[in-house]
C-alpha cells in the first residue's frame, strides 16, 4: 500500500505520465481527424517512424529543433497525401492502403537512415528540446511539475487538444469535417467538395501523427533507433475508438495509458521482478483490446468511415 501511495503521491510520476502520453496524444488527434472525415489511416505506425526519423535527421544535419519539427510534419503530410490519393481519389481499400503506407514509410525511413549514416554503430545524438517552466504555473503544487514543466512539444500537444476540439465543434470547418465523415451526400449538396475536405483532413491528421514520432526522437530521447515506435501507432487507432472520436476523451485515454506505463515502470523498480516484465508490456495491448470490446457496442462510428465517395454519387 505504501508503495502505491509513494508512486501516486509523487509529482514526478504524473510528469512522467504526461510525458509518455504525449506521442499518443498527437497520434490519437491525428487519427481522430482522419476518421472524423471518414478515412481510416492505418499508415499511422509508419508515419510515426517517418516523423521520428525525418525530424531527428533534420536536426542532426543542422536544421534546428523547430526546423526538425517542420520537416517531420511535412514528411507526415506527404505520406498522408499519398494515402488520401489512394483512398479518397481512387477509392481503394483504406485498410490495405494504410498497411501499405506503414510498410513504405517504415522501410523508407530505415533505408534513408542507413544511407545517410552508413557506418555508425551507436545512434548519434542531438541536443533535444529541454523542459521549460512556465513562470507562476510551474510552482503550483502537483499540477505544476506535471503540466507546466514539460518540453514545448508536450505543451503543444495539450494545446492542440483544445484547439482541435474548438475547431471540430465550434467552427463551420469542423462542422464540414464531421459531416463528410457522417453524410457526404449532404456536404456535396451544400456545394462543398467532399474529396477536398477529406484530403485536407487526412493530410493535416497525418502531419499531427508524425509529430508523435518527432516527439520521441527530439524531446523524449535524443536519437533514432530501429523499432523505437514499437506499436504506439496502433495503440492510437484503438484509443480513437475508446475516445468515441472526441478530442477530450482522446486526451483522457492517452493520459491513462501514460499513467499506466509510468506506474508499471515504478512498480517494477519498487517490488522487483515478481512478475515477468513482459506481463506489464503486454498489458497496454490487452487493455486496448478490452477497451475496444467494451466500447464497440455503443461506439458511434462516423457513419461514412471506410466508404469511398465519388463526385456526383447518389445513394
Amino acid at each position: 500500500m505504501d508503495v502505491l501511495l509513494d508512486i501516486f503521491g509523487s509529482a514526478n510520476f504524473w510528469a512522467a505520465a504526461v510525458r509518455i502520453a504525449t506521442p499518443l496524444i498527437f497520434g490519437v488527434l491525428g487519427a481522430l481527424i482522419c476518421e472524423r472525415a471518414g478515412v481510416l489511416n492505418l499508415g499511422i505506425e509508419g508515419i510515426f517512424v517517418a516523423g521520428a526519423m525525418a525530424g531527428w535527421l533534420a536536426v542532426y544535419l543542422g536544421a534546428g529543433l523547430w526546423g526538425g519539427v517542420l520537416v517531420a510534419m511535412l514528411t507526415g503530410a506527404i505520406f498522408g497525401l499519398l494515402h488520401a490519393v489512394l483512398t479518397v481519389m481512387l477509392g481503394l481499400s483504406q485498410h490495405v492502403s494504410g498497411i501499405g503506407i506503414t510498410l513504405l514509410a517504415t522501410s523508407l525511413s530505415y533505408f534513408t537512415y542507413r544511407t545517410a549514416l552508413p557506418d555508425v554503430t551507436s545512434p548519434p545524438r542531438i541536443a533535444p528540446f529541454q523542459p521549460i517552466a512556465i513562470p507562476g504555473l510551474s510552482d503550483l503544487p502537483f499540477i505544476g511539475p506535471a503540466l507546466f514543466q514539460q518540453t514545448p512539444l508536450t505543451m503543444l500537444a495539450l494545446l492542440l487538444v483544445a484547439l482541435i476540439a474548438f475547431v471540430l465543434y465550434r467552427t463551420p470547418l469542423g462542422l464540414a469535417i464531421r459531416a463528410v465523415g457522417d453524410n457526404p451526400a449532404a456536404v456535396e449538396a451544400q456545394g462543398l467538395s467532399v474529396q477536398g475536405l477529406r484530403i485536407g483532413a487526412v493530410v493535416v491528421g497525418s502531419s499531427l501523427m508524425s509529430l508523435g514520432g518527432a516527439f520521441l526522437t527530439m524531446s523524449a530521447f535524443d536519437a533514432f533507433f530501429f523499432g523505437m515506435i514499437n506499436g504506439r501507432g496502433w495503440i492510437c487507432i484503438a484509443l480513437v475508438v475508446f475516445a468515441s472520436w472526441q478530442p477530450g476523451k482522446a486526451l483522457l485515454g492517452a493520459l491513462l495509458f501514460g499513467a499506466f506505463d509510468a506506474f508499471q515502470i515504478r512498480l517494477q523498480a519498487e517490488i522487483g521482478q515478481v512478475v515477468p516484465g513482459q506481463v506489464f508490456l503486454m498489458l497496454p495491448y490487452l487493455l486496448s483490446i478490452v477497451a475496444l470490446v467494451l466500447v464497440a457496442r455503443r461506439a458511434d462510428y462516423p457513419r461514412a468511415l471506410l466508404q469511398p465517395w465519388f463526385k456526383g454519387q447518389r445513394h
Partner: protein
Amino acid sequence: MSFRLESRTDASVALKLMVSLGAAVAALLLVAIPVLFAGGSPLTAYSLIIQGAFGSMFAFSETLNRATPLILTGLAAAVAFRARLWNIGAEGQLYIGALAAVLVGSGLLQMPPALMIPTIMIAGFIAGGLMMVIPTILKQRFGADEVVITLLLNFVVILFVQMLIEGPLKDPLSMGWPQSVPLLAEAKLAKLVPRLRMHWGLVVGVAAAILLWVLVRKTVLGFEIRAVGENRAAARFAGIPVDATMLKVALISGGLAGLAGVSEVSGVKGYLSSDLSPGFGYSGIVVAMLAGLSPVGTVFAAIFVAAVFVGADSMSRATGISNYLADLVVALSLLCVLVGGFFLRFRVRYERAMTPVAGE
C-alpha cells in the same frame, strides 16, 4: 480532352495477370530513385538482386526457403481478405503455431516422424486458427473491429513467446540465450535436397495453395466465402450462414499462418526464438495482394517477394546499399498493386472535347 470512369463488371485473368506484373515493374522503376539516392546504379542493383536470388542452385534454394512461410501467410491473408475478414494478425498466429509445435513436439509426445509431423502441424494449425477465431467472435458478438484487435494481438503473442522462452520453455543448454527447448528429431521437417536449406514445408505450402484453390472454386464453402466477400448483406439475404462461414474462414486463415510458424520452427530453426519471423505475417499481406487473392498466384507472388529479400541481401553485401531496399520494394509493390486494382475495377475512357467548327 477529359476522361471519365466506367465500372468494369468482370476483369479477365489475363488482365489481372498484366496488372500484377505491371505493378511489380512499376515498383522496380520507383525503387530506382532510392538506389540512385544511395549512390548506386539501379541496373547493377537489379542484376545483383536477380543473381542473388536465382543465380545459383544455392541462391534459388535460399529463395524457395524464404518463400515457404510467405506462401502460407500469403494464403492466410488471401482467404480472409476474400471474405472481407481483415486478418492483419498473421504474425502473431505464426508465432502461436510455432509455439504449439514446440509444446507438442519437444518431448511431450513420443512417436515416429510419420505421426509426429502431422501432429505438430495440426496443433499449429488449430492454435493459429483459434488466434483468429477469437477476434472474429469478438467482432460478431460485440462489433469490435478485427483489424485493430488482430494487430494488437501480434504484440501480445510475441511478448508472451518472449516470456516463455525466458522462463518455463527456456533451453537450459542455450548458454543463456532466450530460446526454447529444441524440437525432437522426429518433429523436424526433412530437407528436400541434401545440404540445401529448403525443406518439406515448401511442399506443404504448395499443397495448401492447391487445396485452397479447390476449396474456393469447387466447394460449397468456397461459394459461400466468395458470396460473403462480395456482399455480406446479400449473402445473408440469400440464406448463406454468414457468421458460420466467417468463423470457418477465420479458422483456415489463422490456421495457415500457424502452419507457417510450424514450418519455420520445424524446417529451419529447430527451436522457438523471438526472431523466428522477420515480419512474414505482414509480408504475407503483400503477397496475397500481389496475387490478386488467388491461391495459386500466391505461390508465385511469394517467390517474387522472397527473391527480392534474398537478392537484396546479397546485393547489399556486394554494394553496401542498405538491404532495407527489399522492404521498400515490397511496400512499393503493394501500393502499385493497389493502384492496379483501380484499373481492374474501372476502365478509364478518354473523350475528346467537341471542338466547334469555324463558320457554323
